[in-house]
């Protein structure tokens, strides 16, 4: 069960270390990750504070942050960490854990990723128009990018049909076996 805020959760620290294969103790709060992070302005916690929350075992606060969903995976933090911590991989792992616990603080981001992967499972490749329709139905965001549709259609950049791969059974098999492994 998830811990309450402000509780030291040592199992959480161990889990993040195991899944990310990173040594969290190496972070000495130099702030380089935050200095380079392009999305800091939109975060509730800057990335160095996320690292500190993890070190302090504050699971609930880390997993319910908006920051982990807004990270753009640009890899600047990982590139600039003086102690070679793969910070972006830790952000990935925190998203994995948050999703497993059903905490998705940025609902639209979670819905978009889900719709994207559903498209991959269904067609083997991303079908952009179908993906957008699925995303709109999940979020009710009817007017998302509706202003771009005429341009995208005119330029032939929004395929009207899916490009299904031939061996769809192989993709379905991968998703099925992946789910079995995860149980």
């Amino acid at each position, binding site marked *: 069960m998830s811990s309450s805020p402000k509780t030291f959760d040592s199992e959480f620290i161990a889990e993040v270390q195991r899944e990310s294969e990173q040594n969290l103790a190496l972070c000495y709060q130099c702030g380089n990750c935050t200095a380079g992070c*392009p*999305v800091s*302005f*939109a975060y509730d916690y800057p990335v160095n504070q996320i690292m500190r929350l993890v070190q302090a075992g504050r699971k609930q606060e880390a997993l319910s942050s908006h920051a982990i969903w*807004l990270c*753009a*995976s*640009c*890899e*600047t933090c*990982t*590139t600039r960490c003086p102690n*070679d911590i*793969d910070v*972006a991989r830790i952000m*990935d792992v925190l*998203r*994995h854990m948050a*999703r497993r616990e059903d905490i998705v603080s*940025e609902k*639209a*981001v979670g819905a*978009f*990723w*889900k719709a*994207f*992967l559903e498209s*991959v499972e269904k067609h*083997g*490749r*991303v079908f*952009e128009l179908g993906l*957008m329709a699925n*995303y709109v139905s999940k979020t009710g965001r009817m007017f*998302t*990018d509706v*202003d*771009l549709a005429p*341009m*995208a259609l005119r*330029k*032939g*950049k*929004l*395929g009207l049909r899916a*490009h299904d*791969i*031939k*061996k769809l059974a*192989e*993709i379905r*098999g*991968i*998703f099925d*076996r*992946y789910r079995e*492994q*995860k149980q």
Partner: protein
Amino acid sequence: MSLCYAYYPGCSGLGTSLEYDTSTRALCESLGIELVEIPDWNCCGSTPAHAVDHLLSACLVGRNLGIADDMAEERKLDGILTPCPSCLKNLKTTQHRLADPEFHRKVELVVGRTLTADLPIKSVLQMLVEDLGLEALAKLVQKPLAGLKVVPYYGCIMIRPPQIMQFDDPENPMALDNLLAELGAEVLPFALKTDCCGASLGTTRKDVIAKLSGRILDAAEEAGADAIVTACPLCQLNLDMRQSQINKANHSGHNMPVFYYTQLAGLAAGQGETSTMMDKLCVSPRPLLASLAGRTGEGA
């Protein structure tokens, strides 16, 4: 010695970056580089897959690496190429993680086949710089892009993280700068060449894109550029297709063409519209290309 690669186009090449895929294939053909498309390739899962689960991401990539293994048994390949940095990072990260025997075994179980996955994996840009050499590209130039002032925009992940990507300098890459200079363009210094455009937050958080991509457009204009040149489908989409949204949000008035470098290489090589597909760009480059013809006294 002719070069031959397994080619992974990526999903955006079928839609939003059709012109990148087409101009990449045309450029490689005119350079005598053989691209053999990975048959029945599937989506690598992009950011959503690695953000949801690393095993799922590796397995989606693994199927493609497995098909490339089969191709390499049939004929000699110099590696796997993709034009898309996001696909590239997923391919290379997976190959890197497969070095762990336990993870390798898990991935093989889910993919349902054995994997060797030892072919070199490169972006098309890295191949041009490292395997072919820019001198060969320079020989192709018939109409130098003289008078065209550009800023090179690499985006984040073609070069990052450096431990995985193993290409160029992660803070100040020069591959695209050098390539564009070979084409005859005037390449301006650009401090934001590796800054993030906001990536896949375009659909979900437009405020982030307006700020980050807006800053790149502002800086390009301040630098005196006629155009931005990129190698990434998502960067191109954010800067070009979303430029009107960004202008509206920021009260700016940018009208900045955003080319793929392969389109400009094709143009310099004298290729026509069917290869360069300039008509696919949302911000029309026509006035710029027409004025360029005036500047150099040649038809562009």
